[in-house]
Structures are given as C-alpha cells and as structure tokens.
C-alpha cells in the first residue's frame, strides 16, 4: 500500500458552509444557525480519512453534502471519481425490507445495464463471497439477517458498482464490539483489494485509529484540527481533540 501515496485527489471540498434559520417565537426573532462553517479539505486516492466529532458537529451533514443529498450549500465540492457510494450507520434502514439480498445487490447492476442476467448473478455471488457471505444468502430478506450480516450486505451493495470512493457514516457504531472488529477488518481488506478511498465518519477515535491514515476533527461545524493519525494521537493540539483522545481508551492496545 505504501507505494500508492501518489497525491491524486479524489475529492476536493472548499469553503463549504450550510446554515438554517431557527425562529424563536411566532413573532420573528430569526437566528442563523451554522451547521457547517467554511469547511475545506482534500481526500487523496487510496486514502482513508477519518472525520471525527461529537454528535451535532455537522459530520453527517457534511457527508450528505458530499453525497449530493443536501439541496443547497455554499462553497464547492468537486469529485474526481465517478459517483461515491455510501455505507450507512443503521443497517436496519439501509436495506430495502421488501426485497431479497440478491435483488438488492442486483439492482445497481440492472440499472447500470451493461451486464446480462448470468453476468450479474456471477458478480453478485462473487461480491457476497468477498464480504464473507455465501450464495445461500441470495434469497434472504434483510429481516432474516443479523446486524453484522446486514452491514456486510450494505458493503457489498456499495462495492458492487466498483466505486473508487466510499463514504462510511458511522458504519460500525450500531454493532456490538466483536462484530465491529470484524466489519472494520472487512473494510480494511476491501480497501486494499479494490484500492478504495474512504471518508470514514465516526464519533469514536478508537475506531478511526484502526482504519484511517489521516483525521479531521470537527466541532460545531468547524474543522478544529487535521493531521496524520499518529500525530493526532501523540500530540493533539486543540483542547477539544485532547479531550477526545483522553476519552478514548489507549487505541494502540486494540
């Protein structure tokens, strides 16, 4: 992996701000509430960038903006790859409950429209095996799967269109600890296998430490610190980062 440190940008975020107005009373008194304030960063090919902050810090809003789900924002977000794919936090709402695993995985390929039925099926089974599931899961519905299995299917659904860039929004925080470790390992393996770039959003520095090369720390919509993962852990500059590092157990033991 070390030789892939060519600095090809895959994502460029420049001066992104969003806000909403809150009305204090019926008679007016509007106030502008910033969700993101002047956020800028780059993501390079093959890199895993952690985005850390407590809930309400604007991490998810930023992810939504990057994925194109935010109707309006200021600033620019430039993608240097085809569409990014996403892995959501809650594997219970990320998979269509009315459909089978096979259908869910086949849909993006059907829409893509370049493969015939046999080729699609081959790719689906291949992808299921890649994420540690097997052919027998094809006809199961999401309700018949455990949280960890659902997250594996979500990962397969994200990867089946062969994206270069994945946004993972707290992909393991809804899972229990042993399953967390398995899914993190899977994400690391997939990154290596497919040469993926991750924007990995989490409130948990430990989790970020296990997967990411670089970290951005956000607080109240502002980036307060940015740096290599080891630098941040060894010498956090901003008091808020220091708090986060102290709050996490020593990640190096994990």
């Amino acid at each position, binding site marked *: 992996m070390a030789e892939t440190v060519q600095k090809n940008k895959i994502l460029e975020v420049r001066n992104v701000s969003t806000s909403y107005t809150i009305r204090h009373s019926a008679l007016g008194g509007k106030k502008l509430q910033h969700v993101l304030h002047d956020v800028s960063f780059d993501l390079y090919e093959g890199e895993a960038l952690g985005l850390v902050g407590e809930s309400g810090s604007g991490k998810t809003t930023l992810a939504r903006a990057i994925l194109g789900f935010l109707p309006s924002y200021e600033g620019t977000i430039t993608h240097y790859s085809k*569409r990014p794919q996403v892995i959501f936090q809650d594997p219970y709402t*990320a998979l269509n409950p009315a459909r089978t695993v096979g259908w869910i995985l086949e*849909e993006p390929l059907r*829409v*893509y429209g370049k493969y015939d039925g046999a080729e699609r099926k081959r790719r689906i089974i291949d992808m299921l095996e890649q994420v540690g599931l097997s052919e027998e899961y094809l006809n199961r519905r999401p309700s018949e799967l455990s949280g960890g299995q659902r997250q594996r299917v979500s990962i397969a659904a994200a990867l089946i*269109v062969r994206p270069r860039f994945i946004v993972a929004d707290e992909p393991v925080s809804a899972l229990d600890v042993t399953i967390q470790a398995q899914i993190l390992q899977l994400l690391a393996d997939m990154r290596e296998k497919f040469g993926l770039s991750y924007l990995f959003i989490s409130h948990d520095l430990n989790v970020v430490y296990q997967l990411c090369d670089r970290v951005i720390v956000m607080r109240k919509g502002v980036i307060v610190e940015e740096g290599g993962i080891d630098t941040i852990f060894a010498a956090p500059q901003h008091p808020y980062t220091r708090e986060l590092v102290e709050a996490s157990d020593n990640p190096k033991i994990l």
Partner: protein
Amino acid sequence: MKKLFEKHNNWFFRAGFVITAFMLLMILIGQFWTPYEPSAMDASAKGLAPSLSHLFGTDKFGRDIFSRVMEGAGSTLLIAFFVVLIGASAGVLIGAVTGYCGGIVDEILMRICDGITAFPSVMLALIIIAVLGPGKWNVIWVLAILFIPSFARVVRTEFSRIKKQNYISLAKLQGVGPLRIIIRHMLPNAFPVLLPAISIGFNNAVLAEASMSFLGVGVSVNEVSLGRMLNDSQNYILRGLPWYALFVGLTIALLILGFSLLGEGLQKNNEG
C-alpha cells in the same frame, strides 16, 4: 396462498378468508347457474315463505329470492370491484407522486382530495347521478372518484415515510431513476398498509352501492343488485314478506363481514 396463510396466522384472517371464499363461490356459481331463472315470474308461487324448493322464499311476482340474491350480489360485487380497482389505482398514483415529490405538487393534489372529502359523499353521488342518470357504470365512476382520496392519503403517508429511509437514498446514489424508485423500491413497502385499505375500500364500496341503489339512484330499475333488492323489499317488510329484506340484508352483512375480517387479519400482522 400457503405463504399468505403463514404470514397472517390469525383467526380474523382465517374466518374472513372462509366467509369471503364462500360468498365468492356462491356469486361465481350464480353467474352460470341459479336454481331458478332470476327474473322468471311464477304466478303459482307468489310470496312464498322460505322452504326447501325456495331457500329464501319468493317475492310477490313469484321470483325466487335466492336466485336473485345470487345474481344481485354478483353485480354488487362487480361494482365494488371496479370502484376499488379504479379508486385504488388512481389513489396509489396520486399518493405515490405526492408522497415522493412533496412540495407544491403535494399541496395541489392533496387540496383537491380534501375538496372531494369535504363534500358529504352520498350527496355528491346523488347530484352526479341526478345529472348522469342511474346505471351500473355511472355508479362505478362516481364511487371510484369519491374513493380516490382515501387511498391517496394512505399511500401518500406511507410514501413520505419510506422516502426518508436510507435504502431510498442508496438507490438514488446508485443511479436508479425516480419512476423505478417509486414502483420497484417504494411500492412493495407500501403493500402492508395498502392491502387492508383495499379490503376496507371493498366493504365501503359494497355498502355505498347498496345505499345508493336503496335510495333509488344506483343501478337502473331493470338491473339486479343487493341495494336494488333491498329497496324493493322494504315495501313488503310489514306486508307478509319479512324474509325478503332479511335475506338480502343478511347477504350484504356476510359479504362485508368477510372483507372486514380479512382486512382486520391483514392489519393484525402489521402491528406485530
């Protein structure tokens, strides 16, 4: 079919299924064979009480009531079927579009629906029939239009809930078009609320046809339907033919009971 029973493993569903199946079977048979010709008058058998040869007795023209009920229930059911088919299709279409799009489209279409609901439905039906004249298809169209808002509302609520789910965001990100998202991704998730709505709608349609025909604005005089017969029979309740109204009313009640139980059974499963 087996799957349906496994999924809705409750007595409401089973009882509803049995009653409905029985009624449908009788109606189906009635389309091909009835014990007597439904409109054949028999001067020697006027106003007979129920017996083995005339299960429901005969009316004052000597027509066999059982045969007439079999045929009349058929046309009532046919009306109900088309009312629900048209009403539900249009309702699903409107509900899906408004629920998915939201915004101004939602506002306009739902305010039109509110407008329709704001009128007392029987009065609206009376006015339209007064203009168009009675008849099977006029009744169907009037009722279908009146039924659209209830379906639209149910589907819209469900669609605006489903729209916020992550799997829909995911589908958009995968490049799935809006039409395909609505039909292939969202509609199957709306079925659990749509199915009971349809069975309740069926009920209301049977009742609505019966009450309209009873009021004399339903099917035309020479057509047979349950409401039409109920209208007929009211003149004889106190004149020696009480069973006429009783059996027709009972048939309506059974038909509705069957659908209600089915609807209840389908809903039970959603709750837990």
